[in-house]
């Protein structure tokens, strides 16, 4: 303290805190702030309320320093299991101080946790209000019973908890009567009985997701009694029919958002029932429900004057829908017409002229629309944020010209498979300087000329998809690397011109975390070494069919890429030693695809899996290996909740 620089002695903690409050909570700026000096770090940790931990090693010390924590996210932290949790919570009183304020626990994909661990957490965190245990495949009734001890729970996500049955749900429903938000997506064991009981015991439910459950109208009858329900998501419930929706029409007085996408048995009539009872509906998602939008439904849509968002993906539409929506739904912000038959220029022009607030427009596979429609969209909807025109082959540079001149707020543009996109188009598009996500997959007519405009002007781009853009080579990659420094996600799969030199350029993009390099046969260990050394944040890497990378490349990957979470090495030439090195050293690795490694022996697989079995959550292997690997290793993997996918 005595040797503090003068400037810091002027900055009191209060002032520092004030400064800190101007930094967005999830940005690299915060990181820069706390890396500046010890006192900044101290202030940051003392007032930090949310923490997402990537490595278990630092868990105890971090938790001890952050005493004001409200949210703890362990979803990407490997090796969270009962023992870890027990030890974290069973220390002296001083070090468990962090649990006092905890309101939210994100334990998604914490596959190693079982009831004993949950019991510790529930007992240790008395103020728990929200828990996310989605994709914990081992989360079953026993765990649910323990979780139900947290009586203050208001929000629980249990997506794809495959072991959870009605009994577990009943436990939670009875124990946590204050529940407001609950997601049961993919919990395939849940039946009408469970939902019925839930609705009876948790009358305060506001948000309920029962997507893909095998429930029928009995459930909807029970759900209809929920007075406070605002959001009901039931995508892919194949047993729900129009009769069930009838119950919704007469019940759920607060309903605002309804998702019936992919409910095969639901027809337009069912939706008519719902709309009749809920003219205040704000969001309606009915994609892939029916072949044709019936006229009765269309006329009912008139009543939905507050409608914000509507998706009717996959349905056959007539021009009258655009007229009806355009004249009645003035507040429409989003419309999804992906794969709809019958979307025409005329219809779209009519629609957008009535909906000036439109921000999100999905026209994927509406292949009859032309530049005229896109121009009208650009001119009418000045605040357009997202436009998807994948596979709209009639879209040319003219469209991009209009977008570039009118839609200056555009953040998300999907031009995948639009063969009309060329360098000139990209030049026009580069005026959309707010672009965050650009998809140009299968656009074979683009080259360094167009991409350099994008690279130099759209510097905010975070995600770029150049899948199978055969015109892309090292020069293009060089242009991107120099311009788009914020790039986090990049897909260069099957851009065969890219060689080691391209990867060397790419290594300058320090933020890069998700990279797909499938089928790049011209890259070798040299390129991979450069990439690994440069892009330290790399967390997902796909090297499938990169057959010329030798062990030296994988060694450097093992050496540098400590943040790798997911890796796909299928069809690579990695050796036994390389694989073992990689799997042993990459301590954050949780998902590995290891199919058809021609140079790896069974023993190599065995050793590699032994090296990483405590942290792997998912692994994909060739089915024939199932008989060759020792049962011990398979049991060890499964005991930790690791899912093995046999290819």
């Amino acid at each position, binding site marked *: 303290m005595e040797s503090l620089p003068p400037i810091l002695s002027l900055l009191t903690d209060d002032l520092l805190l004030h400064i800190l409050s101007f930094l967005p909570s999830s940005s690299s700026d915060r*990181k820069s702030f706390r*890396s500046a000096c010890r006192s900044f770090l101290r202030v940051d940790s003392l007032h930090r309320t949310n923490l*997402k931990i*990537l*490595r*278990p*090693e*630092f868990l*105890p*010390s*971090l938790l*001890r*320093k952050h005493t004001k924590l409200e949210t703890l996210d362990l979803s990407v932290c490997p*090796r969270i*299991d*009962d*023992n*870890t949790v027990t*030890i974290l919570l*069973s220390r002296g009183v001083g070090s468990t101080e962090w649990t006092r304020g905890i309101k939210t626990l994100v334990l998604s994909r914490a596959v190693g946790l*079982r*009831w*004993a661990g949950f019991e510790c957490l529930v007992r240790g965190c008395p103020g728990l209000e929200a828990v996310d245990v989605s994709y914990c495949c081992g989360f079953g*009734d*026993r765990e649910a*019973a323990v979780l*139900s001890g947290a009586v203050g729970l208001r929000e629980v996500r249990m997506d794809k908890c495959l072991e959870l049955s*009605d*009994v*577990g749900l*009943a*436990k939670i429903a*009875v*124990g946590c009567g204050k529940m407001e938000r609950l997601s049961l997506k993919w919990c395939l064991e849940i039946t009408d*009985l469970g939902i*019925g*009981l839930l609705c009876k*015991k948790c009358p305060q439910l506001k948000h309920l997701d029962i997507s893909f459950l095998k429930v029928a109208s009995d459930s909807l009858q029970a759900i209809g009694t929920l007075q406070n329900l605002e959001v009901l998501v039931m995508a892919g419930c194949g047993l729900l029919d129009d009769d069930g929706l009838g119950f919704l029409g007469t019940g759920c007085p607060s309903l605002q958002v309804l998702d019936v996408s992919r409910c095969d048995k639901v027809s337009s009539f069912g939706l008519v029932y719902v709309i009749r009872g809920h003219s205040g509906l704000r969001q309606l998602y009915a994609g892939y429900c029916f072949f044709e939008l019936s006229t009765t439904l269309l006329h009912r849509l008139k009543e939905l004057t507050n409608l914000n968002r509507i998706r009717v993906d996959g349905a056959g539409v007539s021009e009258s829908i655009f007229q009806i929506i355009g004249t009645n739904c003035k507040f429409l912000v989003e419309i999804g017409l992906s794969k709809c038959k019958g979307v025409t220029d005329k219809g779209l022009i009519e629609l957008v002229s009535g909906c000036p607030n439109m921000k999100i427009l999905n026209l994927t596979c509406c292949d009859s629309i032309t530049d005229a429609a896109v121009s009208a969209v650009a001119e009418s909807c000045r605040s357009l944020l997202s436009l998807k025109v994948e596979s709209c082959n009639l879209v040319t540079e003219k469209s991009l010209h209009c977008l570039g001149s009118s839609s200056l707020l555009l953040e998300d543009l999907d031009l995948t498979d639009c063969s009309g996109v060329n360098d000139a188009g990209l030049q026009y598009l580069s005026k959309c300087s707010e672009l965050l996500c650009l998809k140009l997959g299968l656009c074979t007519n683009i080259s360094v000329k167009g991409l350099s405009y994008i690279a130099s002007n759209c510097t905010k781009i975070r995600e770029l998809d150049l899948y199978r853009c055969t015109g892309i080579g090292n020069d293009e990659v060089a242009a991107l690397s120099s311009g788009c420094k914020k790039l986090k996600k990049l897909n260069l799969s099957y851009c065969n011109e890219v060689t080691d030199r391209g990867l060397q350029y790419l290594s300058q993009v320090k933020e890069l975390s998700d990279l797909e390099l499938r089928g790049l046969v011209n890259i070798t260990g040299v390129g991979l070494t450069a990439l690994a050394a440069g892009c*330290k*944040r790399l967390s997902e890497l796909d090297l499938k069919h990169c057959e010329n990378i030798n062990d030296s490349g994988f060694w450097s990957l*093992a*050496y540098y890429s*400590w*943040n790798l979470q997911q890796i796909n090495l299928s069809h690579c030439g990695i050796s*036994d*030693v390389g694989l*073992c*090195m990689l799997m*042993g*050293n990459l*301590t954050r690795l949780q998902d590995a695809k290891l199919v058809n490694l021609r140079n790896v022996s069974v*023993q190599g697989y065995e*050793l590699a899996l*032994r*090296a990483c079995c*405590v942290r792997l959550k998912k692994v994909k292997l060739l089915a024939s290996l199932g008989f060759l690997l020792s049962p*011990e290793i398979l049991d*060890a993997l499964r*005991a*930790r909740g690791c899912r093995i996918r046999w290819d």
Partner: protein
Amino acid sequence: MDLKETPKKVPPDHQSFNNFNLQQYQQKWEEEDSSIQDYNMNIEQSQFPEFNQRSEANPNNQTKIPEWDPKAMLSNLSFLEQKIHQLQELVHLIVDRRGQGPSRADELVAQQQQLVTADLTSIIVQLISTAGSLLPSVKQTLSGNPSFGQLSGVVFPSGPNFNGNGNKVSDQSNHVDLKTEQNWTEEHESKDEEDGDEGENLPPGSYEILQLEKEEILAPHTHFCTICGKGFKRDANLRMHMRGHGDEYKTAAALAKPNKESSSEPMLIKRYSCPYAGCKRNKDHKKFQPLKTILCVKNHYKRTHCDKSYTCSRCNTKKFSVIADLKTHEKHCGRDKWLCSCGTTFSRKDKLFGHIALFQGHTPAIPLDETKGLLVGPSDKMETDEIANAVGFAGVNFGSNISNGTGVQNVGDVKRSVDDDSASFFSPLSFDSSNLGGFQEFPRPPFDDSDTSFSYLLSGSFNYARKNGGECGSNDLE
């Protein structure tokens, strides 16, 4: 409690409860046996004098044909046919007897004649009522026809002593009321459901309330042999027993079911009160709900006011006071896999969920013990192995950690944790940083000698990884 205090309301017509009880019970049993399937059997028996057959046959017809039904009519006709055959046989019998001459004692002959006459009457009554029921319009008037009562009344005095139980039968005519059809069917249904009469809503006063004493209710036997005193639950068993006491009990008349009489004057419906003061089924209760039959009284009293002395031999937890309940339970015991936190078990999931929905705070119970063992077993084993290894390697790993300055802020913690005996938490770390340790985590020897070059490489990577520690420290959180 105060059993003696409960006022015993003795209806003027009845001489004793005991008799009444016996009669009713016996009747009850007989009626239970009678069903449409038993119909033919009854017909066969009907060559013996049985007055109650009329009330058996008739309700069946009546319930079967609310309106004109050709099928029922056909069966009625065949019934008539049979009856006429029986009648013929009886007449033949009389003719034969006359032909035999007075070979036997006069008294016996007189008795037999009486018997035959009674039988004749019975068959004729049945003929009339069945024939009447062929026409729906006629049926109503016939069933309510008081002349039938008169008819049986005329016949009855001739047949009282067949059971050899004179005093019992003598007052039958006063006790057994002419039951209405509706009453009969109800009684038939409510075999075991004492709550079945909730919806009955008989206006008070429209029925007669009878109350049995505790001892009567709990008496194991209701029929006693007048000769040896042996008790029986059923009159039929008693009659079978009586055969052993002499030939006079072997006659058809002695073995016949006792008659179900009807009195000339219309009687009140009977309902029963539980002798237990304060019970809802006690007639002094504010919301008194009467019990329908003696059997209901017995079951109610045992279930509600007696100890549950029958324990299920399978689960050793469930107890019952009525043996029939135990038998019903034993059929399902062990198959009730749906368990509530309150201890109640259900054979069906929906029943459990209905129960939980109804009661505050009840939750389904999870049968945990076996899953507990399965889940924790293997992983625990792994943990301990890991801990053992971690302890062995901890010093080395943490030493290298510190010397390389991995994660400045961690140094202190690491030291502390090593001092603590809870190094098991850091076992993951030690494993990560040392693959050597990791491989030895598995207690499988082959790895040690199979790949020496490999272990060399790994120890190389050990040092190699260490250099990176510092860099990673800054990436530890987002």
